[in-house]
C-alpha cells in the first residue's frame, strides 16, 4: 500500500521513475530492523547490569530474526544478479563491496554482542578463579595455624609465635606487597627482621622510609641490622624498633631496644657478634656502624652505608 502510494505520488508529481532497486532496498532495511530488534531490549538490560548477559531468545525473537534474515538475504541475492552496468569488472567490484557491507551491517550488532558475552564470561571465570585461590590460601595458612594453636593451647609462647607469624603472612597477602627481597630493600629488611622475631619470639617494629633494589651494600647493611636486632632480642628489652632510611647518598638503619644497656668498650674480644657481624661487615662496604649504650639505658646500633648511584657502579 505504502509502496503503491509512493509510486502514485511519484508519477503524479513527475519525479523520475524509481529504478528496480527500491523494493529490494526496502526489503533489506526491514530485514535488518527485524534482525536487530531482539537486541534493542537486551541493550537496555545490558546497560543496567553490565556484569551479566541476559538470554535473548524467545520464540517470537527467533521468528523475527529468521524472517529478517530471509528478507535481507533475498534482497542481497537480487542485488548480486542485477545487471546495473555493462562493465563486468566494475560490477564484480561493486557487488562484492556492497554485499560485504550489507552483511556486516546486518550481523554487526550480533557480533558485538557475542564479543561482549565472551568478555563477561571470561571476567566471571577470573573472579571464580580468584575466589578459589583465596579459599585455598586461607585453608593452607589460617586454618592450619588455628589447628596448631588449638594443639598448643597450653603453651602461650608457642601460640604467640604462631599467631604473630600468621598475622604477618596474612598481612602480606592482603596488602599484596609482592615485591621480592631483591627488588626492594624495605622488603629485604622486613623479612630479615621477621626471621629474628620468629626465632626469638619477640615483636620488633620495622619502619622503612624510601626504597630501592637491594644491591650488595644494602644487603650487607640489612645483614648487619639482622644481627643487631637479634642481639637486641637476646639481651635487650621490648619494645625493640628498627628504623631504616634510604636517601640518595646513603642508607641508614637504626636498631634500638629499651634496655638494660651495656658498656660497648667492655665486650670480650672473643665475642664476634658486634665486632665482626655488624661493624666489620659494614666497614668492608665502606660504611660505618656504631653502638651507643650505657648501663641501664637504651641501646642503639646505627648502621650507615654509602650509596653510589650517580656513576652506575653500585655493585649488584
Amino acid at each position, binding site marked *: 500500500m505504502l509502496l503503491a502510494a509512493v509510486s502514485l505520488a511519484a508519477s503524479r508529481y513527475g519525479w523520475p521513475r524509481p529504478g528496480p532497486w527500491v523494493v529490494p532496498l526496502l526489503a533489506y532495511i526491514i530485514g535488518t530492523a527485524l534482525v536487530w530488534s531482539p537486541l534493542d531490549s537486551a541493550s537496555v538490560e545490558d546497560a543496567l547490569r553490565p556484569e551479566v548477559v541476559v538470554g535473548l531468545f524467545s520464540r517470537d525473537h527467533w521468528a523475527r530474526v529468521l524472517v529478517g534474515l530471509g528478507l535481507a538475504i533475498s534482497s542481497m541475492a537480487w542485488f548480486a544478479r542485477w545487471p546495473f552496468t555493462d562493465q563486468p569488472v566494475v560490477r564484480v567490484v561493486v557487488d562484492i563491496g556492497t554485499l560485504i557491507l550489507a552483511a556486516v551491517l546486518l550481523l554487526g550488532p550480533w557480533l558485538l554482542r557475542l564479543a561482549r558475552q565472551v568478555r563477561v564470561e571470561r571476567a566471571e571465570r577470573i573472579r571464580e578463579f580468584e575466589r578459589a585461590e583465596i579459599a585455598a590460601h586461607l585453608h593452607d595458612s589460617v586454618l592450619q595455624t588455628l589447628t596448631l594453636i588449638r594443639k598448643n593451647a597450653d603453651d602461650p609462647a608457642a601460640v604467640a609465635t604462631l599467631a604473630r607469624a600468621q598475622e604477618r603472612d596474612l598481612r602480606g597477602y592482603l596488602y599484596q606487597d609482592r615485591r621480592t627481597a631483591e627488588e626492594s630493600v624495605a622488603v629485604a629488611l622486613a623479612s630479615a627482621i621477621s626471621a629474628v622475631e620468629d626465632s626469638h619470639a619477640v615483636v620488633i617494629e620495622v619502619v622503612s622510609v624510601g626504597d630501592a633494589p637491594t644491591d650488595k651494600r644494602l644487603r650487607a647493611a640489612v645483614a648487619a641490622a639482622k644481627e643487631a636486632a637479634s642481639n637486641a632480642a637476646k639481651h635487650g628489652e621490648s619494645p625493640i624498633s628498627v628504623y631504616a632510611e634510604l636517601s640518595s647518598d646513603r642508607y641508614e638503619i637504626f636498631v634500638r631496644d629499651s634496655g638494660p644497656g651495656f658498656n660497648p668498650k667492655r665486650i670480650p674480644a672473643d665475642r664476634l657478634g658486634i665486632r665482626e657481624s655488624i661493624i666489620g661487615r659494614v666497614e668492608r662496604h665502606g660504611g660505618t656502624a656504631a653502638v651507643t649504650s650505657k648501663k641501664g639505658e637504651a641501646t*642503639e646500633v646505627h648502621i650507615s652505608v654509602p650509596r653510589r648511584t650517580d656513576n652506575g657502579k653500585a655493585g649488584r
Partner: protein
Amino acid sequence: MSEKVRVVIVDDHDVIRVGVKQSLGDGVEVVGEGRDVETAIEAIATAKPDVVILDVHLPGGIGGGALDVLDACLKKSDPPRFLALSVSDAAEDVVAVVRAGARGYVTKSISGPELTDAVVRVAQDDAVFSPRLAGFVLDAFGASAGDIAVADEDLDKLTAREQEVMRLIARGYSYREVGEKLFISIKTVETHVSAVLRKLQLSSRHELAHWAAQRRIV
C-alpha cells in the same frame, strides 16, 4: 591532672572493647561505647567525652568506617578529640583518618600504659605519633629526598627540626627521649609534633592526596 579523662571506646569487636577498657589506667574513665558508626555517633553525642578511641574499620554508616564518625562528629560544636586505633598499618588508612581529623594513631599491639599515655596526651590536645606514622610522614613529605621547608608556613615540606623529631620518633624514641637527644624541652617536642600533624592534615602534597583518595576522601 586531677580530673579523669572521659573516654568513649568505639570498636566493632566486643573482645577488643573489653580489652581496651581493662588496659586503660587509672587516669582514664570509660563513659560510653559504640560498636558501629551509628551507635558511635550516638554514644559520643550523649556522653560528651574528652577523647574517643576509634577503630578505623567500622561497619555501618556510608561505608567509610571511622571516616563517617569523624565526619559526623567534627561538624558539631565542641567536638571530642579522636585517637585512631587499628590493626592495619597500611598507609592509606593511617593518612586518611589523620587527615579526616584524628589527633593520633596507634596500632592495637600497643601496651596498656602506652595507650593510657596516648589518651591523656590527645586529651591535652597534643598529637600522638607512632613510629610507623612518623615513618609515613617522612616518606610522604619527601624527607629522604632532601625536601626541607625554608619557612614555617610551607605546608608541603617539613622543617629540618621537624624532620629530626620525626626521625627520632620513627627510631622508637619517646617524646622525653627526643627532647633529651635534641636538647629541647618536651613541650617543644610536642609543639613540633603538633605542627607536623597540622601539615599532615592541611598539606596538598600529591603523595598524601593519593593515599587519601584511596579511601575516597580528599
